[in-house]
């Protein structure tokens, strides 16, 4: 488990070791959702996740 800081509230966000690029995690403190992102050097960062849009679904 990798411990990241929530960019919104500085809370602790746990990212599983096997997390995939694009997977969503949420901050247990403020509830904000983040998309896991890895750069070319495989460094992890958290991007604010997109909010549900009117064309989302199946």
């Amino acid at each position, binding site marked *: 488990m990798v411990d990241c800081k929530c960019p919104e509230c500085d809370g602790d966000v746990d990212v599983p070791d096997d997390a995939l690029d694009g997977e969503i995690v949420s901050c247990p403190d403020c509830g904000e959702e983040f998309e896991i992102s890895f750069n070319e050097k495989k460094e992890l960062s958290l991007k604010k996740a997109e909010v549900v849009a009117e064309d989302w*679904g199946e």
Partner: protein
Amino acid sequence: MQRSLSILYDRVRWEEKTLLEKAKEKRINVKLIDAKSFPINLTNVNSLEDFGDYVIQRCVGYFRGLHLTAILEAKNLSVVNSFHTSLICGNKLLTTLHLTKANIPTPKTYAAFSTESALDALSEIGYPAISKPIIGSWGRLISLIRDRNGAETVLEHREMMNNSLLKIYYIQEMVRRPPRDIRIIVMDENVVTAIYRSSSSNSWRTNVALGAKVSPCRVNDEIRDLAIRASNAVGGGILAVDAMESKEGILIHEINSTIEFKGASSASKVDIAEEILDYVLQKLKR
């Protein structure tokens, strides 16, 4: 030469993770490509990064996935589902036209292009009736309209929404049915499994996203025949056909083209992720 496969996504859901895990199990080399992560030169699509021989398009955003499919097909790549199938299935109005053209039983449905004609459509169909946005999923903005007052309220709200697609009204009869519908997973002409989706106690809608409960459904001849005909009507692919049990028989009301199968997997013994990968591998052999 080993053929390669990619999954195009914009959000990793349970389905994408399950597909990846299954691919790993089956030793299939799959490349995961984030649809949001690169620009595309439309006048030179061949410069686009390597997507392999076959692409499973899994974007949660309908328009994003649809337009990317058009681009990938312009690069002569095979994409499931195809642009044609995605276009039809992502739009309830087009789906109804294709189902009707193929003589597949479907609920009586009107389109209207103003609030006045939407009210006329509701009078023709009779109350209660259902209003649905032509684009969208998960039961979003689907309204049960019980009478003229309710209709005026729903239509007034729609008029105030700044979205041209919501000014196209899709009005459907309220089919008398048990408090459930049937979801049939079909891949071209192979009916993979079916489940019931029973609405939760506080909703008439049967979307799993709204808390509907799932249970196994036996695929009888009528369900199998209609699912295959519905698949053919929209060009085939990996599809979730939604059906209702009316007094007159099964009605097909919707076909989904970027299928979510977490709910179905919990009620069916069939490994849907494996079926998807086997479907793609069969396509790759051709």
